[in-house]
């Protein structure tokens, strides 16, 4: 069965290593914070100027001066620190933030990502996404495998204006875990109960499939 958004987040949480700084994008990526395994120390950065982000505040304790990049009210944990936007992107551009998890509208087999613009329809702006994808060595995309029209978001080449080139390392969708290799998308894992054939049918790009493809473990 295909994963729901929370399960995608849960699977991505397994990718996060002990003692790393992580930036989570808006949407599914935000949910990743709920699934960090015990014993794994992670600090979450939000590009509007906070490191050491904690959970949402209790009702009545919201502080308008304390939000994340999705403009949601947040809290901070022990050891947190606040800073301006230039310092924030110094952390990002300078590769001090080691992992970025973000959503996408399209990902191509050479690791290009598109997630900021649909010409003539939707232009919200790239926000910090272009800086993030141009910087971190480890960029993981969290998204549904297909769009609302049922079309594959895993493509040979992006059709929308791109956010960054050759940057995505891994994609976790409701159907599969894919790694981006020099030769294109390599299928690493299947969602429980989803067959390789199902994944192939939902994927516009070619898939490298070597040996038995295991199911994701939770």
């Amino acid at each position, binding site marked *: 069965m295909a994963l729901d958004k929370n399960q995608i987040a849960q699977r991505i949480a397994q990718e996060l290593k002990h003692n790393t700084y992580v930036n989570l994008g808006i949407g599914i990526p935000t949910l990743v914070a709920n699934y960090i395994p015990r014993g794994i120390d992670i600090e979450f950065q939000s590009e509007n*100027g906070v490191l050491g982000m904690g959970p949402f505040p209790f009702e009545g304790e919201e502080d*308008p001066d304390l939000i994340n990049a999705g403009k949601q009210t947040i809290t901070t944990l022990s050891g947190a620190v606040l800073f301006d936007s230039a310092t924030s*992107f110094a952390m990002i551009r300078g590769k001090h933030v080691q992992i970025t998890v973000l959503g996408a509208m399209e990902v191509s087999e050479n690791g290009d990502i598109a997630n900021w613009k649909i010409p003539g329809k939707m232009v919200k702006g790239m926000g910090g996404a*272009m800086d993030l994808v141009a910087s971190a060595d480890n960029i993981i995309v969290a998204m549904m495998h297909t769009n609302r029209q049922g079309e594959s978001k895993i493509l040979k080449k992006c059709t929308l204006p791109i956010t960054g080139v050759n940057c995505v390392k891994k994609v976790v969708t409701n159907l599969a875990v894919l790694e981006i290799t020099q030769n294109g998308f390599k299928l690493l894992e299947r969602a429980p109960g989803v067959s390789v054939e199902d994944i192939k049918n939902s994927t516009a790009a070619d898939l490298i499939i070597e040996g038995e493809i295991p199911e994701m473990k939770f």
Partner: protein
Amino acid sequence: MINKVVDNIEKALDGVEGNMTFMVGGFGLSGIPENAIDALSKKDIFGLTCISNNAGVDDFGLGLLLKRKQIKKMISSYVGENAEFERQMLSGELEVNLIPQGSLAERCRAGGAGIPAFFTPAGYGTEVAEGKEVREYNGKLHILESALTADFAFVKAWKGDTAGNLIFKGTARNFNPLMAMAGKITVAEVEELVEAGELDPNQIHTPGIFVQRIFQGEKYEKRIEQRTVRTKE
């Protein structure tokens, strides 16, 4: 000590004119100069270029200036959450220059720091890079971005002193310190204005040298855009 205090919002805005370029601090609605924006939205000045990470919402923040069509051009990184903005942009009434958030921040800092241009990897290979010089460093392609400055920078701090020194709170800091550096005239509004000497000189975020005028804002609504909470178990 050089005293930066102006008596009221009118004096704070002295000299603003149509067709000028303004920088406006804040991220979303957090840390925006509410009093300056409100006063600007009541002035008959038009044709403005506004440099601000966001464009406010329909009825608050820079949305107030957009509604009156005072803004000719926005230089921003993210402009969702504003239907009127999207309408003006798609209809071509409003010119929009979208740039990556980190480049926006760094370009403001550069403008204030006398750095006319710098290389960044952000945006390489995208629309943002069109017409820009590309150069390889450390095996990676970078584009050349230029500094931004403004006729006026409007920023908002938590506390300030009469010498123009500013302290910010939480994530309301965001672009404010950088735009403060880049304004030819930087107007700072604060929630609390104290005498010079009352703030710890080690703990100031924006040195007063970057601020030309300072005043205590009359009131702050501090609207929350996305109220998200958890419930106590």
